């Protein structure tokens, strides 16, 4: 998974540099190797870049891409807190991709918090320490008599005060303190961390300032569209280029024919290869390029996957399900034997479709390739891997590829892939001009790296006391040569492994031409639905309260093997107990065809339990009335106002997938074209989401993903409570929920 890949990267640089800034003041750049991160006890290297100017303005470079997760606000908050300045003095500035200066310039895996929580604070604390030293030297007093607050150093005994701006130049000449031993604040003294801080870009957003990749403007820029083969992996043979070139405003039209087929991406891979084949049209405006595209006639070689379809995959999966799995992932005890003697046996087949990311800002990139150099403006969650892809494909030295990071109109994992970057660069090179490539919505929906579809065949058994004694699961998924496709795997440690004495997980992989990749809470966004729904089925079979059944299944509070440092059953129990309390679980009477459902999941180091209340109309329409969320992401919520927004959004994102979304493959291509066929959640579907953070004595971790996975099964379990009908396939089909 992503976070493991990233953390395994060896630290490349070790430095801490403080220097005089041009125009006065102090410039601090840091690399902090060897500080154990929260996630796995492995060491991580983090960097920061801070400038303290003579006018007391503190500029903090935001090194990570901002996709709406609030990182451009959150990382500077960490530094500012320990630096002991007022937030009003702080300016957050988007950094470019600069791997000589920064590491970990990506947005994914809910990793910004665990990777930065301690190192960024140490950056602030060390800088503060130097400013104190500079003041003490200036006044010829002892450092212990000096205090800081609001960007000033005070000498209490003499009543003297100097601002950081006044001290910065002197501080810049001092030796740097040992980072691992600088003193950090007691959390009870925090003035910024834990206090709601509004997004630094919001004033620009609400007044329509250009911030996003698509807003990039470069002098002399042309505009491009790129028509790819609708069938994944297909290639262009020929096109009516002579006609296209004569259309108004068209400057270039050419085949990108040598393109390699996108190669299979295995689980954990974060980068595709090469460039898709297609036809590029470059014009003096995007509208004219797009208009010309509608006149395009292309002959495609559709390649070997042109017969594939969602229906075909489903048939194949249904045939494979009852057979022995091709790959045994885990085998504890004797599940088949235990099923024979169990008091209640439940058999169920679950499935979910491919889904797209559909970020609201379509894929786009502006590129200017000149000779052996390239400059790109890219809304990428993973610009470093984008730079590499561009360099490899165009035969450039990575050092000569400069990437500017822009604000990003939604990521959800889509922009960890950089196909649009390499397309823009290639087109710019051929056109010999700066080019802004903008995909239309159909490009976006039909050329994604989809959340893979999946099929799960379960048999479970509970004994007369309601204990789960047998669990058999056959996962039919996608992959090649025994390797799962990206985000199509199943961790053999997945719960309830370790808590069911007789348990087997097996998988069979089907080959497919459909590109897959991480989508918000990769893996978990689908697996939570099947695991947590099936546990609910077993609870009902055993005649137990589903929430208590979940608690009983957890057993004693301890660490089980799992992602990061492992899976803490005590923290799972904690969020379940909290959600029981805040939702009034078991205490409220609901009208007919209404019900509560519960689900809990451990995802991306966070623990979240959710209760959903639904009312299902006689015609099958599902009305979500209310959601309660109990979430444990450690001891501290760094920015409460943003955290609540993100948790609510993640829950509602789950509902959007459960209620509205599926991508259909037919004839090797995607059927849906726009937001009518593939619909994000709408305002009228957004139920109130009440979020409670359960604070535990654990280092803070990220929040972008953890609240999503349990939303879907909690909703489906609520539908069961309301109607007695079990949702085993997504998206939810209201026709199955009609009364009578």
């Amino acid at each position, binding site marked *: 998974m992503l976070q493991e890949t990233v953390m395994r990267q060896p630290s490349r640089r070790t430095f801490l540099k403080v220097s005089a800034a041009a125009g006065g003041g102090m410039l601090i750049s840091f690399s902090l190797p060897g500080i154990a991160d929260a996630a796995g006890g492995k060491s991580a290297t983090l960097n920061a870049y801070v400038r303290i100017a003579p006018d007391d303005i503190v500029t903090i470079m935001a090194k990570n891409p901002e996709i*709406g997760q609030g990182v451009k606000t959150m990382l500077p908050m960490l530094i500012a807190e320990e630096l002991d300045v007022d937030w009003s003095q702080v300016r957050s500035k988007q950094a470019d991709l600069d791997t000589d200066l920064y590491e970990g310039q990506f947005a994914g895996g809910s990793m910004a918090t665990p990777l930065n929580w301690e190192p960024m604070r140490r950056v602030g604390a060390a800088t503060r320490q130097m400013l104190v030293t500079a003041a003490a030297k200036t006044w010829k007093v002892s450092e212990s008599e000096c205090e800081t607050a609001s960007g000033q150093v005070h000498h209490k005994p003499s009543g003297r005060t100097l601002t950081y701006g006044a001290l910065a130049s002197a501080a810049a000449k001092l030796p740097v303190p040992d980072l691992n031993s600088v003193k950090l604040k007691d959390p009870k003294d925090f003035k910024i961390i834990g206090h709601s801080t509004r997004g630094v870009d919001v004033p620009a957003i609400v007044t329509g300032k250009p911030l996003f990749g698509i807003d990039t403007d470069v002098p002399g820029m042309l505009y491009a569209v790129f028509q790819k083969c609708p069938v994944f992996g297909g290639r262009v043979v020929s096109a009516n280029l002579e006609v296209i070139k004569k259309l108004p405003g068209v400057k270039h039209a050419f085949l990108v024919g040598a393109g390699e087929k996108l190669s299979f991406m295995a689980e954990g891979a974060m980068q595709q290869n090469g460039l898709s084949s297609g036809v590029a049209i470059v014009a003096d405006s995007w509208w004219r390029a797009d208009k010309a595209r509608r006149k395009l006639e292309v002959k495609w070689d559709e390649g070997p996957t042109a017969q594939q379809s969602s229906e075909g995959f489903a048939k194949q999966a249904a045939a494979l399900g009852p057979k022995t799995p091709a790959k045994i992932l885990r085998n504890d005890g004797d599940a088949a034997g235990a099923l024979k003697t169990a008091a209640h046996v439940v058999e169920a087949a679950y499935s979910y479709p491919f889904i797209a990311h559909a*970020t*609201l800002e379509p894929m786009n990139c502006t590129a200017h390739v000149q000779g052996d150099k390239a400059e790109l403006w890219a809304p990428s969650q993973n610009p470093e891997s984008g730079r590499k892809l561009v360099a490899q494909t165009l035969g450039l030295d990575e050092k000569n590829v400069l990437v500017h990071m822009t604000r990003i109109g939604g990521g959800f994992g889509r922009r960890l892939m950089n196909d649009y970057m390499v397309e823009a660069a290639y087109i710019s090179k051929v056109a010999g001009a700066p080019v802004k490539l903008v995909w239309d919505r159909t490009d976006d929906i039909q050329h994604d790296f989809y959340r893979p579809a999946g099929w799960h065949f379960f048999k479970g058994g509970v004994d007369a006391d309601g204990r789960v004694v047998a669990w058999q699961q056959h996962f039919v998924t996608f992959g090649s040569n025994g390797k799962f496709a990206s985000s199509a795997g199943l961790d053999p440690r997945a719960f309830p492994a370790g808590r069911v004495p007789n348990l087997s997980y097996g998988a069979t992989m089907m080959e497919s031409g459909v590109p897959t990749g991480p989508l918000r809470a990769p893996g978990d966004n689908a697996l939570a639905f099947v695991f947590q729904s099936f546990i609910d089925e077993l609870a009902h079979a055993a005649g137990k309260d589903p929430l208590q059944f979940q608690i009983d299944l957890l057993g004693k509070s301890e660490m089980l093997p799992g992602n990061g440092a492992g899976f803490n059953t005590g923290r799972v129990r904690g969020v379940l107990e909290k959600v029981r309390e805040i939702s009034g679980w078991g205490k409220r009477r609901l009208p007919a065809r209404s019900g509560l459902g519960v689900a809990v999941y451990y995802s991306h180091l966070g623990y979240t339990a959710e209760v959903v209340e639904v009312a299902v109309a006689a015609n099958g329409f599902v009305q979500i009335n209310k959601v309660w969320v109990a979430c444990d992401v450690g001891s501290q919520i760094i920015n409460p106002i943003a955290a609540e927004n993100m948790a609510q959004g993640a829950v509602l*994102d789950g509902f959007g997938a459960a209620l509205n979304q599926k991508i259909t493959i037919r004839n090797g291509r995607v059927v849906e074209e726009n937001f009518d066929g593939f619909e994000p959640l709408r305002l009228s579907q957004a139920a109130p989401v009440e979020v409670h953070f359960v604070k535990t004595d654990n280092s803070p971790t990220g929040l972008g993903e953890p609240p999503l996975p349990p939303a879907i099964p909690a909703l489906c379990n609520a539908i069961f409570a309301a109607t007695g009908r079990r949702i085993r396939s997504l998206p939810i089909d209201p026709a199955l929920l009609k009364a009578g």
Partner: protein
Amino acid sequence: MQYTLNINGKKHTVDVDADTPLLWVLRDAADLKGTKFGCGIGLCGACTVHVDGEAVHSCRMRVSSVGESAITTIEGIGATPVGAKLQKAWLEIDVPQCGYCQAGQIMTAAALLARNKAPTDAEIEGAMDGNLCRCATYLRIRDAIKQAARETLGAAAAPKGA
């Protein structure tokens, strides 16, 4: 073709094809990039602007049909009392996540509040359901519209000069 458009109270002369959607005229010819492209066919609301006070999808309006109409975009909406209140509510409630949809949300909300000072929940849903927010900031969008409505009403109800 040359067109002289009245955008946010200023004249902009642009040279574009007659069938160019207003969206692309604003973004690429008038250099007003606050109005966003999301779907191109009237399904997402990201491109919402006001034409003579009415919320329209600029991706579906040809420049040739704009004529003398007054166009207001997110860059100009703050000059109206309702727009300013909405922007303030958006800031205080910290509505955006990625922020990409928010210009369209504010423009649709501004048209709603201009014709209905105190919309009910159902009226807010009716007006706003065509504006997608992929980050699902809907709960805050709803709250911010209500806050702006309350403040607009409060200001109107307050005695003059108070």
